[in-house]
């Protein structure tokens, strides 16, 4: 259900500002948790508040961010990940320890950020230096011994190789330098081959690849080195297994650390987001309480208007009744009201602070939007059919507290039946106390007692005429500026009148030919006279 609401209110644009730093926080972001427990939400809000206070110390906040950025995910494949997995465990613990040292004790306790892996870290530290990690000699005396033997063999081999290459150079002038092979003319290679000092294989028709043949002493020592390497491999594998056993022994502690990291990352990221977007803590109310918003901003529109240099009017209103039916002008802001309320509620129930000075609302089990999603497609269904199908899906969740937002419901059918359908929905919603409905429409229907009729304040046609006296706006930007200037984006109780014909004024500003507007006005006058 929440997916329809998320799409309707462009929640992804809000979430784009949410930037966790660890793989754990990023995984939680991808999951998109929705909470219907006020207790869980209050706990998340408390943590966000705590981190907002913590972040006032910029130096500490920057250090914490740095350590969180460097926290890797612990390997899911455990011992199978070998030394690379141990590197990740070491890196995780090093950064966890540093992060734990930065958090104030009460906050660390709340997060479960307790440093309990000192012993494991001290074991792994033996293989770490300046952030690098390897299966070090310190892990096993056998490793130290065999590596020392390999180093001695390498020195000896290098000496024997240098001697052999010098001998080849002296007798043939062929200088391999630091290269493993050379490409030389075949006729030059022949005597070298015959001398047993160089091995050749074809390169092309006239040339061969020549490789030095090492002495018997070199070959013998090289074989010994291979044996030592195999021994080293076995010792490394053994040390690696022992280290993984130590990791397995601390599994419960590591899982607790993972949970703490996720919680810390989420709350810290939410606090940074709250600061960046000037968000405030939502107030959660008991079921049935009204939804109240003050200074509420629909962020995507606020940004778009800022791009056009237009002012944004924040929303302030108390939706006192369980059902709200909103009427109003085209481009008067009905949809934005619905989107704003949806965004605030979805953000709040996803554990975020909200883009409003005040937002108080009950906690719902789900939030659904029925809005004629242009991407909603199903074979054989018209736009009307799809909308009814969307309504059915939304209504199926009304067994638990549901915030249902409906924008221009039944817009694609005739006015009489659309009004009747809306009346039916309102009647059904009135009888189901789980449903909190907000519906925007141009159609008039009979309202049940539980519903409040609201209207957007609409277009100030008198002021518009006084200022413009028949002039028309040119260009989309100027048209929008004109509408923005004379549109009163506010909500009020609807007294039930038909309301002004704002649609014609807006159409006129948008450049619909004057003759069309005049004919439409004449038609309306005739209709009104007939009534």
């Amino acid at each position, binding site marked *: 259900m929440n997916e329809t609401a998320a799409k309707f209110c462009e929640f992804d644009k809000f979430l784009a500002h949410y930037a966790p730093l660890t793989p754990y926080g990023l995984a939680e972001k991808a999951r998109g948790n929705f909470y219907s427990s006020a207790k869980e939400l209050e706990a998340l809000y408390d943590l966000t508040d705590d981190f907002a206070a913590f972040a006032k110390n910029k130096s500490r906040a920057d250090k914490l961010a740095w350590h969180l950025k460097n926290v*890797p995910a612990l390997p899911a494949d455990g011992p199978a990940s070998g030394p690379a997995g141990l590197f990740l465990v070491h890196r995780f613990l090093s950064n966890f320890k540093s992060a734990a040292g930065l958090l104030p004790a009460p906050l660390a306790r709340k997060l479960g950020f307790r440093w309990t892996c000192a012993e494991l870290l001290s074991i792994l530290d033996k293989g770490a230096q300046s952030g690098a990690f390897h299966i070090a000699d310190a892990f096993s005396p056998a490793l130290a011994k065999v590596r020392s033997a390999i*180093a001695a063999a390498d020195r000896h081999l290098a000496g024997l190789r240098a001697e052999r290459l010098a001998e080849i150079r002296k007798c043939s002038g062929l200088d391999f330098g*630091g290269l493993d*092979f*050379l490409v*030389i003319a075949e006729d030059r290679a022949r005597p070298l081959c015959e001398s047993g000092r160089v091995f050749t294989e074809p390169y092309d028709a006239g040339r061969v690849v020549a490789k030095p043949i090492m002495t018997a002493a070199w070959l013998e020592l090289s074989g010994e080195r291979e044996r030592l390497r195999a021994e080293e491999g076995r010792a490394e594998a053994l040390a690696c297994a022992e280290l993984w056993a130590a990791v397995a022994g601390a599994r419960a502690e590591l899982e607790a650390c993972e949970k703490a990291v996720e919680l810390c990352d989420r709350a810290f990221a939410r606090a940074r987001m709250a600061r960046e977007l000037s968000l405030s803590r939502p107030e959660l109310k008991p079921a049935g309480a009204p939804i109240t918003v003050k200074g509420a901003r629909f962020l995507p529109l606020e940004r778009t208007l800022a791009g056009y240099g237009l002012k944004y009017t924040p929303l302030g209103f108390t939706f006192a009744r369980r059902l709200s039916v909103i009427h109003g002008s085209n481009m008067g802001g009905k949809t934005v009201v619905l989107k704003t309320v949806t965004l605030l509620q979805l953000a709040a129930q996803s554990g975020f602070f909200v883009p409003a000075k005040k937002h108080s609302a009950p906690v719902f089990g789900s939030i659904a939007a029925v809005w004629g999603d242009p991407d909603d497609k199903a074979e054989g269904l018209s736009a009307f059919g799809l909308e009814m199908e969307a309504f059915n899906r939304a209504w199926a969740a009304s067994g638990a507290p549901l915030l249902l937002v409906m924008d221009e419901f039944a817009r694609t059918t005739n006015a009489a039946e659309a009004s009747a359908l809306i009346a039916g929905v309102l009647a059904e919603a009135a009888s189901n106390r789980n449903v909190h409905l907000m519906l925007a429409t141009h159609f008039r229907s009979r309202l049940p007692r539980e519903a409040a009729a609201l209207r957007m304040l609409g277009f100030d046609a008198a002021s518009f005429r006084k200022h413009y006296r028949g002039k028309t706006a040119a260009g989309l930007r100027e048209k929008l500026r004109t509408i923005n200037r004379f549109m009163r984006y506010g909500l009020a109780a609807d007294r039930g009148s038909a309301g002004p014909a704002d649609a014609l004024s807006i159409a006129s500003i948008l450049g619909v030919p004057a003759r069309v507007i005049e004919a439409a006005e004449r038609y309306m006058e005739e209709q009104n006279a007939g009534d």
Partner: protein
Amino acid sequence: MDPIGQLEGRTTFIVGSRKNAGKTTFLNYALAARRRPHGRRRGRPAACLSVGLESGSADRVFGTPKPRVRLRPGDAAVVPAASLASSDAGLEILRVYQSATAVGRPVLARARREGTAEITGPATNSGLGEMLGDIAEAGIDTVFVDGAVDRITQAAADARGGIVYVTRVEPGTLASAADAVNLLADADACPAAPAWRSFFAGGPAPAGKGDFAVKGAFTSARAAEAPSDARRLVLEDLTKVFVGWREWSALRRRFGIAFAVSLPLKAVAANLYNVAPVQFEAKLTPAARAKLIYNPYLRK
């Protein structure tokens, strides 16, 4: 021209005309040559990795033995985590990458003693940028990237990059190999048009008349779309050029050509098989000849 010295302190993409052109062999030569006693930066470590399925993982995926690179102490390489144990270079791990490729998790590792290692690379272009960043953070400024040319653009745009083009020349491919080298050398001489970078990244076109920008592959058909008043063609980078040398030359006579992202061609390493140098050079332009080096393992 000091073919290896000029690659110091930069990221060099070693790209090949085809599979088995000799890219990894050239990479091994570069790693060895810069550590020789008379090497300009003797003692300074280098790093290497590969990009693209062709050079990075196909060999292991399809079961063919993968060529290995020889590392000296201090050198770093991106290797598959699963191959750490098989390397004899005493690798220490500097970074483990989460996004696994076809051969598993890549690891940035540093050699603690001389030895060989199998190299791999990132699964994505952004992964390449991350790896180059980590290598720089490890204090290594000379990087060799063994790989497919179509994977280098984004990272190269931010790196101080250059290209070494390795080509295998045989009698049957002499003309086409020369054409490819001529085109590369000529494209290298084309100016950069950095103002157009954002356009190719999805932004607006910069103001100015006479430029015709071609998004995506630059083919004969796209070239024909240039308006009559176009004076300059702007291409994203040389990996988008899909016209032959002859057609390229004709277009160059008609238009100026610029690249939004320019990747300097540092050298063309030619591995000649049954072809004499004089035969190959006869088919090259002076600009191409100036970039030419021969198989560095070749001795008279």
